[in-house]
C-alpha cells in the first residue's frame, strides 16, 4: 500500500475511516470474510475529498467481482466528506492465497471453509477438516462451487467440506 502523506493528519483520519468502511465489505459468496481479509485491497489514494481504491481480483472469471466493486462504492458513499469515489481492479499484481490475513483464515474456518495450506508440499497439500480438525481428509475435486474453492471429504467425521484452492505464482 502506498502510504498517505503523514504530515496531513486529516488525511490519516480519513484513511482510517475508509479502511474501517472497507472492512465491512464482505465477499458475497463467503459473507464472514471481508475483502481486506481476503487480501484484495491493493491501494488507497486520497487526494482532498477524492478517493481511489484499487482492488486485486481473486480469479479473473469470478462473477462476484462486479458485486464487490458496487458494494465497495456503496460502503464509501456513507462517508459524507468524500466527493469523488473511484473503485477499480488492477491486474499488475497477482492474487495468491498467501494474501489472506490471519483473521481471514479464522473467519473462513468459521464459515466451514478450510483456509489454504501455508506452504505447498511437493506431491500435494494437507488440509485439516474445518469441523473436527482431523488431517485425515481426501481431495474429492480440485474444482468447487466457486473458482476459489475445492471440495474435500473428512474421513474422520465423515463430512464433505470445502477448502480454499491454493494459488501461488510458483505454479
Amino acid at each position, binding site marked *: 500500500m502506498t502510504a498517505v502523506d503523514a504530515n496531513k493528519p486529516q488525511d490519516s483520519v480519513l484513511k482510517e475511516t475508509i479502511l474501517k468502511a472497507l472492512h465491512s465489505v464482505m465477499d458475497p459468496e463467503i459473507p464472514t470474510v471481508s475483502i481486506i481479509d481476503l487480501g484484495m485491497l491493493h491501494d488507497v489514494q486520497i487526494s482532498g475529498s477524492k478517493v481511489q481504491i484499487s482492488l486485486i481480483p481473486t*480469479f*479473473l*472469471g*469470478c*462473477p462476484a467481482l462486479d458485486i464487490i466493486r458496487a458494494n465497495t462504492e456503496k460502503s464509501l458513499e456513507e462517508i459524507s466528506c468524500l466527493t469523488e469515489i473511484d473503485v477499480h481492479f488492477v*491486474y*499488475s499484481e*497477482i492474487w*495468491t492465497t498467501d494474501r489472506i490475513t490471519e483473521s481471514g483464515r479464522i473467519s473462513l474456518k468459521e464459515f466451514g471453509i478450510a483456509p489454504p495450506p501455508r506452504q505447498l508440499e511437493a506431491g500435494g497439500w494437507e488440509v485439516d477438516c474445518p469441523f473436527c480438525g482431523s488431517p485425515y481428509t481426501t481431495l*474429492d*475435486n*480440485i*474444482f*468447487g*462451487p*466457486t*473458482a476459489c474453492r475445492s*471440495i474435500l471429504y473428512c474421513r474422520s467425521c465423515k463430512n464433505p467440506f470445502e477448502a480454499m*484452492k491454493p*494459488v*501461488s*505464482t510458483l*505454479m
Partner: protein
Amino acid sequence: MAAELPGYREALAELLYQLADDDFIVAYRGSEWLGLAPHIEEDVAFSSISQDTMGHAAIFYKLLEELGEGNLDDLAHGRPARDRKNAILLELANGTGTYLNEPRYDWAFAVVRHYFYTVAKRIKMASLMRSSYIPLAEAAARVNVELYYHQLHWKTWFTQLMGAGGEAGQRMEAAMAKVFAGFGDVLSQGSRETEFTHHGLIQGSKEITEQWIEGMAPVFSQLGASLPSEFGISENSGRNGDHTQDLEDALSILSEVYRFDPAAGW
C-alpha cells in the same frame, strides 16, 4: 515508447483478437457440457474451468477496449463470425445434436481439444509474460496462474483414457486425428506474425510449436503413443476470418440475450 512505433498498435490489436476470440469460443464449447459431462464432479470442474476461461477472454477484450477498439461487451458479442480471429478447431461443435436436443457429444474430442489447447495456451502465456506491451504481460501472468489447475485436470483425463485401452483407446485415437488435423491453426498466428515478433509482442509460431512438442513428448512417450511430425492446417484459417457454420450457430445462441437489448446493464 514501443506503443508509438508505426504498426505497433495494429499488430497488438490483431494478437489480442486471436487470444480473446480463442478463449471466448472454447469457453462456450466447454459450458455446453454442463449437465452432460461423464459424472457430477466433472460437471463442477468443467464449468469452473470454462468460467475461468471466459474470464480470460474478458481480460483480453478489456485490453482491446483500452486500445480504443470498442466496448468489451460489443467486442465479445457484437462481432460477426467473419471478424473473428479464433482457430477453427476451437469453434467446432462438441458433437451432433444440440444442448437441448439429442446431444451426442464426444467426450474424447473434448478431452483432447481442451488438453492440447491448454498446453498451447500456457506456452503462449509464458511467452507473453515477457511481452513488450506491459498490460498484456501482466494479464498473461494472471492467466498463467489459473491455467495450472486446468492443465493438471486435462492431463489426468488424457492419460487415463489413453491408458484405458478398448473403446476408450479407439475413441481417443479418432479424437486425436481430428484435433491434430486442425491444430496447426491453433498454433498459427496468422498473416501478421512477423509484426508480432518484430515488435516483441510474443514469440513466433515456430518457437511456440517447438515448445509444445517438447512439453508433450514425455507424455506421449509414457503412453507409448507418437506425436505427428506436423500439424494439419487447411487453406482456411480462423486467423484470417475463415470460419464454419458451427461458429455462426454458436454466436447466434451465445449472443441472443445481448442482441435482444445491447444497451442493457449486465
